[in-house]
């Protein structure tokens, strides 16, 4: 139509497609690696309910609003909900998994430093969603 040749646009589109392919491939590879749960991971059952978190360790001990784990060990969270949707989040460790009634979702992490981190709810769940918070304590192994 408009007389001029269109090669700059073709090059540009090719570059964008290549970039997207690269982003996709990197994302795919990373996600594949981080979804692989170590076999010795300890299971923690995380229950979300309006508006607090409960944690149940393998030995049956329960914590509310606080979670104590040991540095250097792997943990697998089984995230469930008693009422509406929530989302279990430890932002510093990029742990994020929705708590959905009727489902068990899993996510894992292995804390690598001693310290304290915020736990929060990242899915809207009503009145006190803004304060559905907790604290993660990563401690030295008691051995």
């Amino acid at each position, binding site marked *: *139509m*408009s007389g001029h040749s*269109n090669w*700059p*646009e073709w090059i*540009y*589109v090719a570059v*964008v*497609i290549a970039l*997207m*392919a690269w*982003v*996709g491939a*990197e*994302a*795919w590879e*990373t*996600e*594949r690696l*981080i*979804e692989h749960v170590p076999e010795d991971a300890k299971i923690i059952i995380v229950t979300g309910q*309006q508006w607090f978190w409960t944690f149940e360790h393998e030995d049956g001990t329960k914590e509310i609003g606080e979670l104590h784990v040991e540095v250097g060990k792997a943990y697998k969270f089984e995230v469930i909900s008693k*009422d*509406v*949707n929530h*989302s279990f*989040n430890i*932002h*510093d460790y*990029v*742990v*994020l*998994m*929705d708590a*959905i*009634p*009727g*489902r068990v*979702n*899993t996510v894992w992490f292995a804390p690598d430093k001693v310290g304290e981190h*915020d736990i*929060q*709810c*990242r*899915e*809207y*769940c*009503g*009145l*006190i*969603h*803004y*304060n559905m*918070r907790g604290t993660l304590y990563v401690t030295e192994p008691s051995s």
Partner: protein
Amino acid sequence: MTLELQKPRPIWQIMFSTHHTDVGLLYLITSLTFLFLGGSLALGIRAELFLPGSQIIADSMTFNRIFTVHGTTLIFLFIIPFASAVGNYYVPIMVRYKDMAYPKLNAIAFWMIPPAGVLIWLGFADFTWYATPPYSIISAPGPAADMWIFGLKILGVSSVLGALNFVVTILKCKHPDMSIGQIPLLAWSFLSSSLIIIVAIPTFAAALLMLLTDRLGVSGFFNPAMGGDPIAYAHLFWFTFHPEVYVLVIPAIGMMYEIIPRFSRKPIYSYNSGVFAFVMLAIVGFSSWAHHMYATGMSFTEKTVFMVGTLAAVPASAMHVFNFVATMWNARIRFSTPMMWAVGGIALFFSAGAGGVVNSAMPLDFTTHDTYWVVGHFHLFVMGTIAFGSIGYLYYMFPYVTGRMYNETLGKIHFVLSFIGTVLVFFTQHVLGLYGMPRRIYDYPPIPEWIAMNQIASIGAMIIGISMAIFLANMIYSAGKGKPADTDDPFGLGGRYYYPFEAKNPSH
């Protein structure tokens, strides 16, 4: 070109008219009203978040209702009716037909919007703009929730009726001398977005009814206590609303296709790639909906499929950006108010898309999902791209609709303040998201970075608020008292850059 009959008429003649420019005017006034109403709610939200603790909003319930109605209003009662306004004014003219294909249906589609708006505003629901179950079934207080559901139901029907009308007007009523390859890109944008609406909306319409019967306790589609699954709702919702984001953005891009070549005083770089990119977005937009659901516990395969589907739509968006930049390249650009808005809108469109790619890459989305990053991401589209394109277009239409010129200096001040404000609010919100602040929270712990960035965002919002007050004053004053416009060349571009056809007199 003129878009409006100059002789003054009583308001009821416009209200009961079915002529496309009259219905366009009704859409326009309605959408701008809701822009200001919804925008005021945003100022309330930003004032509340200026500091931790309770500021101006008494309790979290009120806060939750405010952000729910804010989002619902601006998407469904500002952006969509604004596009319909532009489509009503321009599509018949662009296909050289006397009116929309079904004028009465057109008026009916418009008149469904005010009652829906009233339902949403009188109800003031709190369950966010996606009404997720089971919260929306077992926790959200009625009758607000039910009024919202009915409001959205009505808006959905109105959208589908409007879309059918655009499709028929373009495909069946266009002048026989014109081929489909000759209609302007703005008309193509309405054809593409209307086709998306027709395919996408019925799914949400069904989900809304299921949600309502779930609330009434007679079904349990999405209620786990009755054997249902909330994830099913998420799929139905996003199957409609990911494509719907293209319904929102495509007409705004179409408006930029009217503004940018004209004020660059050049033809568009490539008409064909504009058409191609619209059609691609309309099709590929259906392959990515569950990128909103990476954290719901989908399998690795599902996540991969939807990531690929999302990334596949990016080249089409990028083609529009290229087309605009290539058109402006070496052009004799005239930076009148409409052009400033359009160019600013493209810059923000590009930034928004770049953030979207980050969301799409699944491991990165676990950092950004449901934080302020996502709020920043989609506001760069809805405010930065769509509202910018729309406001630019409003300035562009103004002389044709009113026969008068707006104040150019105030128009430019409006743009500069809005642009600064938009960058301050929504770029900052991206960073805030990286620091982990969840969205939809009434209060937050006093983390120094969070406070600083919330304050920058709130100041940005105030700047936008001030610019919008200037805008309102400019529009109201100039519509009545502005200096008469030269409707052959209101922007001093030289006559041959304008659209050659006029609206036909309704009294035929």
